[in-house]
């Protein structure tokens, strides 16, 4: 009976981790589309928040590829904390009443504020998943993922590669401007 319960929760946990990775892909895809379609270049802190989402995604990917583990959930928590730190810092930079903020708002909030909200949600999600996966131990085993999960994994890989290329085009092999207005290697 207990085995059935844990087997059911494991299937649920697998689905939730794949869904979480898809959500991270959604965030990265949104940032990618906004940057290319609306020509809004990300500032260094914006790029660091993207790195925070990528780090969260790696923790989720480990759960998807090797099975859930407290270690993988710890990586997600550390990543979300790091991302929330960068997003919170940018919120505080623009919190003054006369400050217009950086970039265009989306649904009434700037992207760094959305990022902060999402990182906090990622922490709450991880706490909930640690309750659901409380019986899991750190026993990594490479899994055979289904076609849909494989598609999510490769989409994640492609989006991180796209971010690498865009950052290279914007900043080259150096630092990015604090308030970028054009790409270093992409005349548009």
């Amino acid at each position, binding site marked *: 009976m207990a085995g059935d319960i844990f087997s059911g929760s494991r299937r649920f946990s697998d689905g939730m981790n794949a869904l979480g990775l898809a959500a991270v892909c959604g965030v990265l895809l949104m940032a990618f589309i906004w940057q290319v379609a609306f020509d809004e270049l990300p500032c260094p802190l914006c790029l*660091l928040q993207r*790195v925070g989402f990528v780090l969260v995604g*790696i923790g989720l*990917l480990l759960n998807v590829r090797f099975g859930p583990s407290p270690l993988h959930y710890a990586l997600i928590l550390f990543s979300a904390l790091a991302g929330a730190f960068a997003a919170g810092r940018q919120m505080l930079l623009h919190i*003054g009443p006369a400050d217009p903020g950086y970039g265009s708002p989306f649904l009434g909030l700037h992207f760094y504020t959305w990022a902060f909200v999402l990182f906090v949600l990622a922490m709450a999600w991880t706490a909930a998943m640690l309750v659901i996966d409380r019986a899991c131990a750190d026993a990594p085993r490479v899994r055979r993922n289904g076609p849909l999960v494989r598609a999510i994994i490769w989409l994640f890989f492609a989006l991180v590669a796209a971010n690498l290329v865009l950052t290279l085009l914007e900043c080259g092999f*150096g630092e990015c401007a604090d308030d970028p207005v054009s790409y270093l290697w992409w005349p548009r």
Partner: protein
Amino acid sequence: MTGRPMIMMLPFLTALLAIGFAISGRRGACIGLWVVTLLVFAAWCQYHMTGVLPISL
């Protein structure tokens, strides 16, 4: 800005390698590169967070 060299795309590169290792089934290498990415993230945060915030906490 502190005048020290920094490469903004570096954490994306290390993260991409980490993802590649996870896909190929090498968990230890993936976690190692996750740590490297987090360290670069922390260093780049320190690099870009040198200004004083216009608020009192």
